[in-house]
């Protein structure tokens, strides 16, 4: 395609590139400022996540009130009422209890779904990386299709088939995430498989699975960990969305999303019922996002937060 008098010619490296400087000396890559932000965001992320986890764990053993109990007489109490620091819902349930129990739902769903998705997706990705070319192409294309489809569409389709509830939410999120994890794993896995010392391992007679397990997996782990943390955040958001739509956790299981749904009709005289669960969701999502970003800067400094993942 090139015109005749122009052959590919390697660019003479600029003075600085050859000096082994890894970062762009143009100075446009904000390595410096990111390094500075990393501890702060990481700390903030850990704090927020810590609060959520604390609430979830504690609520498994104790909550101020029974999350499922109704108490119509005491409904719609405002914030700061005696005995109900955050007020009560339209069914008289203590908001603080609901938030704590909701934390448990959110974390449970997101941890289950994300872990499963990571496991399945990684297996898919590794299998694709190590497969014969034709098989590899099919597996990769399938992953691409899965990534291209809007996740919530997959989620809703699965929910139709399974019926509303926490199970549906978990499976829906798994369906959403698995192709993404697979896609992310395939690239680096293939790169590692092409390395010299891995080729040597093949020559020694090691099986593909052994090599995938011993050489590829440990090296893609950092990327996966960072991705998992960001997926936790997304999972929390998705669970809240599904519950908001009525497709997720069903009563009497507490859920932040459903609390938001119920708050719609009484927005004018009990706005706190909408604001508080929303803050909880935002806090949890923000926490995991910051955690993920912080982890990324720590685990893989060259890939700064600017090279954002889709």
């Amino acid at each position: 395609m090139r015109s005749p008098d122009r052959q590919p010619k390697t660019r003479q490296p600029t003075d600085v590139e050859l000096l082994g400087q890894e970062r762009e000396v143009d100075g446009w890559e904000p390595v410096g400022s990111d390094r500075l932000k990393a501890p702060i965001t990481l700390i903030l992320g850990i704090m927020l996540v810590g609060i959520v986890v604390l609430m979830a764990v504690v609520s498994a053993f104790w909550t101020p009130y029974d999350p499922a109990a109704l108490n119509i007489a005491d409904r719609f109490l405002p914030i700061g009422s005696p005995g109900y620091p955050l007020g009560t819902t339209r069914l008289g349930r203590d908001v603080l209890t609901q938030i704590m129990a909701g934390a448990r739902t959110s974390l449970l769903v997101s941890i289950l779904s994300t872990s499963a998705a990571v496991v399945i997706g990684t297996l898919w990705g590794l299998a694709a990386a190590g497969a014969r070319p034709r098989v590899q192409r099919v597996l990769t294309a399938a992953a691409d299709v899965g990534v291209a489809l809007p996740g919530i569409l997959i989620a809703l389709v699965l929910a139709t088939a399974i019926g509303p509830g926490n199970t549906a939410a978990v499976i829906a999120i798994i369906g959403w995430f698995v192709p993404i994890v697979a896609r992310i794993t395939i690239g680096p896995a293939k790169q590692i498989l092409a390395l010299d010392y891995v080729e040597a391992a093949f020559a020694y007679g090691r099986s593909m699975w052994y090599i995938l397990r011993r050489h590829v997996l440990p090296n893609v782990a950092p990327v996966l960990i960072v991705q998992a943390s960001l997926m936790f955040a997304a999972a929390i958001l998705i669970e809240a969305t599904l519950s908001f739509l009525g497709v997720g956790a069903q009563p009497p299981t507490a859920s932040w999303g459903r609390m938001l749904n119920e708050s719609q009709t009484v927005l004018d005289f009990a706005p706190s019922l909408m604001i508080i669960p929303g803050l909880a969701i935002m806090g949890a999502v923000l926490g995991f996002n910051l955690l993920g970003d912080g982890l990324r800067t720590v685990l893989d400094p060259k890939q700064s937060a600017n090279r954002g993942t889709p």
Partner: protein
Amino acid sequence: MILQITDLSVKIGGIEIVHIEDLSIGPGERVGLVGESGSGKTITAMSLIGLQPRDAILSGSILFGGREILGLDDRSMSLIRSEEIGVIFQDPSRALNPTMRIGKQMAEPFRVHTNLPRSAIQERVLGLLDRVQLSGGEDLLRRYPHQLSGGQQQRVVIATAVALNPRLLIADEPTTALDASVQQGILTLLLELSKERDMSLLFVSHDLGVIRASSQRVAVMYGGRIVEVGPTDDLAGRPYHRYTQALLGASPRLTDSKGQLTARGERLSAIPGSVPPMGGFPDGCPFRGRCRYEISMCRENPAITALENGHRHACWNPATPGDARAASH
């Protein structure tokens, strides 16, 4: 003096990358800046017009036409760029915006610095195309960079750089990314432009042959410092600094009497070792550790020895005529 550099220091991350004590360029003069990759020559050239890397800190003095331009803010500096000082780059395929038509890019200096109407600009641009021997006229102007060959692209870059008749043109490795067959043409063009417009030329390159063909004076850089400077012929015939000597010995070609590039066909002697990374040059003379003629004195910063004709060097154990002849044969 068009350009007078005094005590220029470029620091990145607290480490001094470049230190130039004294370098000047006169009107219409063609000065070469030669050195291997990693010698700091490109950073020096870019620093002259404020296009140094974002986190580089400059100090010292750069006088252009008697006016201090070091430390000028971007806006003030932008008025000088292109109008007074032009730049051409190493890789024209990257220097041109791939999504903008040639004509629009060539018109840019006029759009920025003048109030000329579009038609007048078009006229000038076509004239420039002519001058750099690019045929195609308006048709070419409508094309995109990737539709041109490397040589054509570089001619476009040159035309744009000299569009407003700057007094100084900085050429950073203008022929390096081009085919050998095309290089001579570009060189000739640059020389002609310099002569007919009385335009000074700062020619940065690692290729001694190219420098010899183009520059009247040359400064040899190593480790961010000028180790020897003087008239090109003097330096080539009678180098003093051991690095200059080594460079000459390692040069695959020079020029013949007509100033044309030739292949040398002689045995090359490589310079032992490799260029240290930025900030990793030894104390004292930067060429320590790779120099065959190192003496204990080299641990100290070499003093500058001034010779005739503005020839200066900074070497404790400079080459003698006998050495020089042995090296260049």
